[in-house]
């Protein structure tokens, strides 16, 4: 993802940070300074295939965690890249998805 795309996503009011990782969980791009949080988002990306193997319910497209006390966070899983997002508490999962759908499409993540 190029710098312009990152800037565009970061313009979205509810989004507070993002991290793009490759298949090996290495950061391609990150605007998240909190190292523990970055680790956690990478952990979620790495955890998805393990969960898929256990559940046998098909592939996981995204994992989102919400809270009344902290900002929400989630990862969108793609074939080559995954996108971790830190977004504002109270912002719904559906709203977040509609706002970043175009970027997910450009990264070959999501429905398309």
């Amino acid at each position: 993802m190029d710098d312009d795309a990152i800037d565009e996503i970061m313009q979205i009011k509810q989004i507070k940070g993002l991290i793009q990782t490759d298949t090996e969980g290495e950061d391609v791009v990150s605007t998240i300074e909190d190292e523990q949080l970055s680790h956690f988002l990478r952990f979620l990306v790495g955890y998805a295939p393990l969960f898929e193997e256990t559940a046998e319910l098909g592939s996981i497209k995204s994992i989102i965690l919400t809270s009344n006390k902290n900002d929400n966070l989630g990862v969108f899983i793609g074939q080559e890249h995954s996108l971790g997002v830190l977004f504002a508490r109270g912002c719904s999962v559906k709203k977040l998805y509609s706002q970043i759908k175009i970027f997910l499409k450009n990264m070959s993540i999501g429905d398309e």
Partner: protein
Amino acid sequence: MSKLDMDKILDELVSFDGISHSCIYQNEQIMASTFPSVIQDKLSGMGAYIDKIFTSAHAIDRNHDEIHIELEENTLIAYRVNDDFLLILMAAKSINLSLVYMTIKSIEKSVKVHGITPPEAKPSQPNFLNVSNTTDAGDYKKEDIPIWSLDGGSEDAPSEMTTQQKLERYSNGLKKLLLDSFGPVGDIIFDEASKKWKALYTPELETLGKLVDLITLEIDGKSEKRSFFNKASKYVRRSISEIEDE
């Protein structure tokens, strides 16, 4: 929380449009489930993974208690309830999340209010609470739950009852109206209003109308307030006239 209580929670959740299955995971095992048997053996593994995600989030001081795992066709949603157990739902992507969220919040409060062990049976609530003593929880079916009749479950005619028994009978009737309208939330509403009623007034037949007022105050939404108030007022009027006719 008894197996019966858990089954009741799951039963309510799967009655919502968009929720196909649900289960409760606690202490590394599935305590109750409506998932099909073919997936039962995978559920505890899924519960363990989800629990690990919540635990890891808490380890970095994040208090996340709700997770959405989006699959191809559905979404697996899990809630960490009171840091005690996981409620896992298989839901359609179009699910009304607010409806589910508010139900989970009412379950959280109910578990907090009643504790994790089932409340002891009281004479005034024989049918509802004695189920766990008389029915094998493993064979629970929704139709097994005896429902209070509006007369509070007593088989005695009002003329043969003491004043205290009448009071219990009619306040249970009001509670039944609430449960019919609001499900488990009705239980919480009644408890809150009943506490205030006992603190503010002498609990007697003459102050039953005050209990109706206090319950109505606890209900959200104008139309819901009006609907309950009308039904409850009619019920109290009928009950009082029944006594006066004796």
